[in-house]
């Protein structure tokens, strides 16, 4: 209903019916995500919303953790958001990645730092970037794998974080290939051992408990 030219009373003001809902969703997303630059993030949010892409919203409120080993500004929740947004593409353009990075109000230096570990030209394979992100979260290989499991899992939070073994082995082998201390044979041995136990009993899904404790027994802390 087009607004009449002259309005006489407050009752004539018309509020679009979808507006409250949109506002509410936006507010909730903002509260959950807690962006440092609300404006930047809102722009990203609404453009993603208009395009129909996954939104740059964290699933759970993440309180700022003071015990992070490496203070990169990147948190697990943020990585998860990125994963949500970009996982459906196999390879991601650097430009797009940068955009998404900025939307989340993360420092660009961190991005550069991460990309330096495995330099690429234009596009980066998402899983590799993800693995690098995981390793940025946790200092050691084990903790990186743990983060990876917990981010990628479909199990409910707090439950056994399980991911398919292929994914796990891919991430693990990639990360260990970047690491100069480990040899490939070590990696293969470890993976084979895990595979036996996992594939037989647990339907091909590997959980955090399977490797996290084992690692301490078998290998010296990396």
């Amino acid at each position: 209903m087009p607004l009449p030219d002259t309005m006489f009373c407050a009752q004539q003001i018309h509020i679009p019916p979808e507006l409250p809902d949109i506002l509410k969703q936006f507010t909730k997303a903002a509260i959950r995500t807690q962006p440092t630059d609300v404006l930047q993030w809102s722009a990203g949010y609404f453009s993603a919303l208009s395009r129909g892409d996954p939104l740059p919203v964290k699933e759970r409120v993440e309180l700022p953790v003071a015990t992070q080993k490496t203070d990169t500004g990147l948190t697990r929740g943020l990585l998860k958001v990125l994963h949500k947004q970009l996982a459906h593409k196999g390879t991601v353009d650097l430009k797009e990645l940068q955009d998404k990075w900025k939307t989340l109000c993360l420092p660009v230096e961190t991005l550069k730092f991460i990309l330096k570990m495995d330099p690429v030209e234009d596009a980066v394979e998402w899983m590799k970037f993800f693995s690098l992100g995981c390793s940025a979260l946790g200092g050691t290989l084990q903790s990186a794998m743990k983060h990876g499991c917990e981010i990628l899992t479909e199990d409910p939070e707090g439950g056994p974080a399980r991911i398919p073994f292929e994914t796990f082995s891919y991430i693990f082998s990639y990360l260990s290939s970047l690491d100069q201390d480990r040899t490939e044979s070590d990696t293969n041995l470890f993976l084979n051992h895990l595979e036996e136990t996992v594939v037989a009993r647990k339907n091909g899904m590997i959980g955090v408990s399977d490797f996290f404790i084992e690692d301490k027994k078998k290998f010296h802390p990396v």
Partner: protein
Amino acid sequence: MTSTVAESSPRPAGTYTFSSRPRALPCQRRRYRECFGSSEEEPIRYGNIMYDRRVIRGNTYALHSFPPTTQPDPIELQRQQEIKRKALARKRAREHLRLRSPEPVEGRKHVDVQTELYLEELADRIIEVDMECQTDAFLDRPPTPLFIPAKTGRDVATQILEGELFNFDIEVKPMLEVLVGKTIEQALLEVLEEEELAELRMHQQRFEELRNLELAEVQRLEEQERRHQKEKERRRQQQLAVLHKQNETSQKIAARAYAKIYLADLLPSVFGNLRDNGYFYDPIERDIEIGFLPWLMHEVDKTMEYQTVGRVVLDMMIRDVVENRLKMFEQLGVKESKSIPDENDKERKESLGTGAEQVIEDVNQQDSQQTNGSLEKKPSAEGKLSMERKPSAERKQSTEKDSLEKSASLEKKKSVEKVPSEEIEP
């Protein structure tokens, strides 16, 4: 129309009290046409009490009060009738007594004459003039007109330009406040709730995980324990079995030893008994006993039989001889009897006959016995023959005479002697 009379305190006689709820009496007269259906809905019309004919006007103290019971008393009725009659009679009387003008003189007639200024036509017939008057046809009650109060006050006019009355920013402010405020508040609440739920769930999951792990551990331990127990049990059973076996074996050994001692001298006694009973036989001896001796006996029997046969033949020969001799003697006897008395001869004959018959029979018997008794045992043969002879003697003759006996016995002895001699011979 009912009137309820409440029986209150006993009234003093004569006073009239009537107690019922005051009620307006409906007015019968209708001003408008009766439209069917509405007459009942209308409330009962109240008539004006001032113009109601039923209401008593004037002084009421002197009025006769009707007793509450409207049953007319017969005495009262009678009295009233009398009063009426009396009144009537009085009226007639008065009429009768009223003064009239004297009667007219002869030839004259009284005429009534008007003496007013203007003559009036007096007619019997009253002048009637028909006048009609008609009310209007029944009209429906017109609807009550709207009550529009009369206009009071003063009219004043003014003009509003755009933007004067309504300022968007100001007006929208409360709305915005509500909108945004509520939104934020709601969003916050919802987020909090969701967070809380998610946290709870996470805790639950963690707890479940731990519990599962612990359960697995517990189960493992239980399994282990169970296996240990089983193992122990098995070993124990084994041990028990071994012990048991040992026990049995020792018992068996003891029993065997004892039995051996017990039966040590059983054997010789057994053997001795057996030997005594002839179970251990010399085969040759046995063979002789079994094979040779029966044959020997058989041969002996045969020999004896031959002898018997010989004897029988001999006996037959003797018998023939005896018979011949008997015949000869009989013939002799017959010849002699003619000279000797009959009885003795007869007796002799009889005795001889009978004796001879006896002898013959005895001999026959012997023969038969001997032929039958060839297989009888040696020591008892004599006794038997003698025993048989005795009953045969008793059987045949109930009355035996000495001569008979003698002759018989003589013959018997002969035969008996012969027999033993025959018997002794082999």
